[in-house]
């Protein structure tokens, strides 16, 4: 009798084990920069992913989620492509995600298209990326999306003559083109444009030229890092009056660490973006609190890109019942709508790109701290680049 019981018990265990095996895992390859000069955005995206998994568990539709992290180490499309390939071929990943930088995302898109795997672009913001694979969805933003509406808004809010100053590489050029289009289409006049080298440390020369052109608005595109703080401080040092000249830019200009370094020099800077930790919604307040508790810092647009990317993965898996086929997943995500810490967002069923609200914010002092206060918004903004280039 005893023997039969142990026999039965061991058989049951074996059955449970094999059925757990049959239940399976969903492997997600996360490819982005964990080291090097782009390590900070990478770690923020990773934090967003980790927080989502912590809050929602690591099992979806009966399957366990397993992350395989790969470091692309900066701008290295050959490495990013190889890592995406390896994570699919070698490690058996069903989904690839991450991609903080445009060249890397473009290279990986080839892999996604060839291997027919679902790909989630959690950050790379150049418009053309989404067209490179029919299995890709984006959960961040595009430069055109955010900057064209800023140009339109600028004109509507009193800026007639604008000077643009952007970083001299792809995203900067995109920002320049988008802002100028939005601004000119609304009726504005561009009095000067300049591009500064990507590795530039000192902005006094560039901002002096901008000041000398006498505009009533200066548009600046700058990537995250040490430059926003330098720009903010130099603007004050050169005596540019923000009441007379609106200083406008994309959200990175007034990122958390930039504001901390700028101090009061940051007051009055106007930015357009899809996310800020200061966004006043219950969902975001909870998100920010949970994020701070876990990682001791505020979330930023990288974090929310990672967070919403995981949300997209989880929801599509639920819809397909755990089926990881690329076509099934991409069809499930098209048209998906949800409430994100950033506000409402939707995945465009035609382009698979993100449709969201763009907020216009101004830096103000609230309770002794400098924050981005949202005071205007444009809803349901689609990426206008495809429309603009189709013409």
């Amino acid at each position: 009798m005893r023997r039969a019981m142990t026999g039965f018990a061991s058989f049951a265990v074996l059955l449970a084990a094999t059925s757990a095996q049959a239940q399976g895992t969903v492997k997600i390859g996360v490819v982005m920069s964990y080291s090097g000069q782009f390590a900070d955005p990478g770690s923020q995206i990773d934090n967003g992913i980790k927080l989502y998994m912590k809050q929602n568990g690591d099992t979806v539709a009966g399957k366990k989620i397993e992350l395989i992290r790969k470091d692309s180490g900066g701008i290295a499309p050959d490495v990013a492509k190889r890592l995406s390939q390896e994570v699919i071929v070698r490690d058996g990943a069903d989904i690839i995600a991450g991609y903080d930088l445009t060249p890397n995302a473009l290279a990986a898109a080839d892999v996604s298209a060839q291997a027919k795997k679902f790909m989630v672009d959690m950050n790379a913001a150049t418009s053309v990326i989404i067209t490179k694979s029919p299995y890709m969805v984006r959960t961040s933003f595009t430069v055109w999306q955010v900057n064209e509406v800023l140009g339109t808004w600028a004109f509507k809010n009193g800026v007639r003559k604008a000077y643009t100053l952007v970083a001299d590489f792809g995203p900067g050029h995109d920002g320049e083109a988008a802002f100028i289009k939005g601004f000119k289409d609304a009726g504005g006049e561009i009095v000067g444009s300049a591009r500064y080298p990507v590795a530039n440390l000192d902005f006094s020369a560039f901002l002096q030229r901008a000041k000398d052109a006498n505009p009533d608005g200066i548009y600046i595109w700058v990537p995250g890092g040490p430059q926003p703080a330098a720009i903010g401080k130099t603007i004050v040092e050169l005596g540019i009056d923000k009441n007379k000249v609106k200083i406008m830019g994309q959200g990175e200009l007034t990122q958390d660490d930039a504001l901390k370094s700028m101090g009061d020099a940051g007051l009055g800077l106007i930015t357009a973006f899809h996310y800020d930790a200061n966004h006043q919604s219950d969902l975001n307040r909870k998100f920010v609190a949970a994020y701070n508790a876990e990682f001791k810092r505020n979330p930023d647009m990288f974090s929310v890109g990672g967070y919403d990317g995981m949300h997209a993965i989880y929801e599509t898996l639920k819809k397909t019942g755990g089926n990881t086929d690329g076509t099934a997943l991409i069809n499930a995500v098209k048209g998906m709508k949800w409430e994100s810490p950033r506000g409402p967002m939707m995945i465009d069923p035609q382009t698979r790109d993100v449709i969201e609200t763009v907020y216009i914010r101004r830096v103000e002092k609230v309770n002794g701290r400098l924050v981005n206060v949202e005071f205007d918004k444009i809803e349901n903004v689609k990426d206008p680049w495809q429309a603009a280039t189709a013409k």
Partner: protein
Amino acid sequence: MAVSSSALAGPHQYLQAQIRWRPIEIAFWLATLLPFVLTPNYLVLASQIAITALFALSLDLILGYAGIVSLGHAAFFGVGAYSAGLLSKWGWGEPLTGVIVAGLAAGLLGYLVSFIIARFRHLALIMITLGFGLLLVEAANSAGWLTGGADGLQGVHMWPLLGTFQFDLYGYTAYCYALIVLFLCFLLSRRLINSPFGLSLRGIRENIIRMRAIGAESRPHIRTIYTIAAVMAGIAGAILTQTTETVSLGSLDFQRSADILVMLILGGTGRLYGGLIGATIYLIARDQFSGINPQYWYFPIGILLILVVLFLPNGILGGLARLAETERGRRWLGPLTAPSWRGKFP
């Protein structure tokens, strides 16, 4: 008056001794075939190691053999890479001709630059090569209409190799291709080094003043080897573009120049295999370390470099050569290491 044959015998014997294939070399090249059998999932990594090894070999030709320290060698790699990419983008996707065109483009740039390079030495030379490399990066960034700028070149699509072998997701074709080109370039380098020209390069490296004193022109030699190294680096860059169908500014930036220099020093300069060994070890270490911890892999890599320098001076092969000189080492490592200056002629 004819020089007596006994005076010529020494150097010729030396060169003939060098050119014989050692068993360890044959073993090394057979080992490069192992990935096909042992680790078929790693072929894409293997192909990138082969490409980097070729690049390192090209740097060894100028650094290890002619004493030119270059911090801008990635310029030629990048020119080769972009040439191959642009050729494909403009409609001609045949790989072999693409490689030849890329090699010629890089070689042309190398030839032009070599006129300046040959006139300088020491720190000025290092900084001038660095400056040229940085200028090229800026130029490539500015010429975004041509190079795609920071987003990289789009629209690179390769035709099948020799009409039948498509570049696939698994990397079989890529690794075969890269390995064969590496081997051919290696044979060429080996022949070049173990020739009177190669000897004169080593003379330039050791004591350029004395070379001039014995009437050996140094500048044309430097220009020649620099051009050859540029062609080889360009070929390596082209293969990278063709096997990955991507090109970006990362193929010619300072990071790439610095990385290849580190890999070459790690393996050991002036020993022909140093670049190959250094590239293999560094890239495998980086892949493994970053797999374990993608955020802090710089730490174990840094420790690896420090330990190699402290315990194996002159790189891995240099350190092994030093060990081979000891009694015990001679017994165990004798046949392994590359030949040193143990010549019998004065």
